[in-house]
């Protein structure tokens, strides 16, 4: 065990890549989710259709298959992405497809009276979305988004299978070098667990802040 603990700094170093990837993927996924989620409620059939196909395709195939497809198969169309870009785009779009359903559900869950009231107050449809619907919808999106962020952290481990040296990849290397896979992988799992706990904590704080925000608006 002593000898394994010596490698902890190396694991922490690789954790930086994991955290970096997690943040980049969260951003891509969030944007994709907002766009696709709103697009699925669009007035235009073609927009709804395209968004629907995106969601079904990127949710239907598993994250790893999407990753492999982008990394191995996409170059045949002349698009070669390096492993990092493939990971951010592939996992981002995969999580974004799940997120789109969260966004859609949250927008639909805003009571109909809110739309009617905003319309009665002569809001344009964009103002209605910006000032009335989204602030309430985002509060409802937050708990599932928090879970999704932890899912994204977990999904980053897949990048080790397309040659990136993240926490999982480094753990696998060290397990081979030290001949102590149990100790190494347990440490790796604990590091993931700590990051996941931090993400959950931050998301809960954010959730509470956003809920207060809506509360204030209602009172004012």
């Amino acid at each position: 065990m002593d000898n394994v603990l010596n490698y902890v700094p190396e694991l922490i170093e690789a954790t930086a890549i994991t955290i970096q990837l997690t943040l980049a993927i969260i951003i891509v996924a969030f944007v994709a989710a907002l766009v696709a989620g709103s697009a699925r409620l669009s007035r235009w059939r073609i927009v709804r259709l395209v968004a629907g196909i995106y969601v079904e395709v990127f949710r239907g195939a598993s994250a790893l298959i999407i990753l492999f497809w982008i990394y191995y198969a996409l170059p045949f169309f002349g698009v070669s992405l390096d492993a990092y870009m493939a990971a951010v785009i592939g996992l981002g779009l995969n999580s974004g497809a799940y997120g789109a359903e969260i966004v859609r559900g949250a927008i639909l869950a805003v009571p109909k009276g809110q739309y009617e009231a905003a319309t009665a107050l002569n809001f344009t449809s964009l103002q209605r979305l910006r000032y009335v619907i989204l602030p309430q919808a985002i509060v409802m999106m937050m708990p599932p988004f928090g879970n999704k962020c932890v899912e994204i952290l977990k999904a980053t481990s897949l990048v080790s299978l397309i040659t990136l040296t993240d926490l999982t990849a480094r753990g696998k290397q060290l397990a081979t070098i030290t001949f102590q896979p149990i100790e190494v992988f347990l440490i790796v799992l604990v590091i993931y667990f700590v990051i996941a706990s931090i993400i959950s904590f931050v998301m809960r704080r954010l959730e509470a802040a956003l809920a207060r925000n809506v509360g204030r608006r209602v009172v004012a």
Partner: protein
Amino acid sequence: MIWDWEYAIDVLPALAEASLVTLAATFWGFFFALIIGLVLALLRRSQIWLIRASTGFFVEFVRSTPLLVQLYLLYFGLPQIGITMTPFTVGVIGLAVHVGAYISEVYRAGLDNVPAGQLEAATALNFDSYRRMMFIILPQAIPPIIPALDNYLVLMFKDTSLLSAIAVVEMLQLAKILGSESFRFLEPMTIVGVFFIVMSLLAASGIRYVEARVGRGST
């Protein structure tokens, strides 16, 4: 033409065979996940505080950490303590524990929804704790959560692709092998992707059908 039909048809039979491995892993993984999930859910209701707390921590830990690393721990770790199993068995165990941890939360919701009076009535009728659980609580707790369990079957199906990382030759692993032999990844990878998308869509419509039948359609 980028897409080579001849090659695609060439690799199809092998991929179809590998899909049986994918489906078998899904089936056995889910079968054991249902059992593990129930055991975990019951342990979380134990009268002993330590069992409740440690089960709760275990579930949270498994749910917050990547399945891939859990599979590595089992695949590379078990031989270290003298246990050797086939990659397929290791994979099924890993999937079952991971998804079982998620499913235990579903069972928990089902168990919590059984009115307390049922337990009290059973106790008043002098049922022992085993009979209370088997004949009174579980028959009421399980049926309402069946639609929710289906989603985890789909999750399990998608997660089987991770078994490719521990040398199980399921569809994705085979696609990778075929691709590196021929330097053509496009066809095998696309076939696998389409297979997964079609299966997920079929499962999703199956679930909607079941939910509509049970009368718990999503709102």
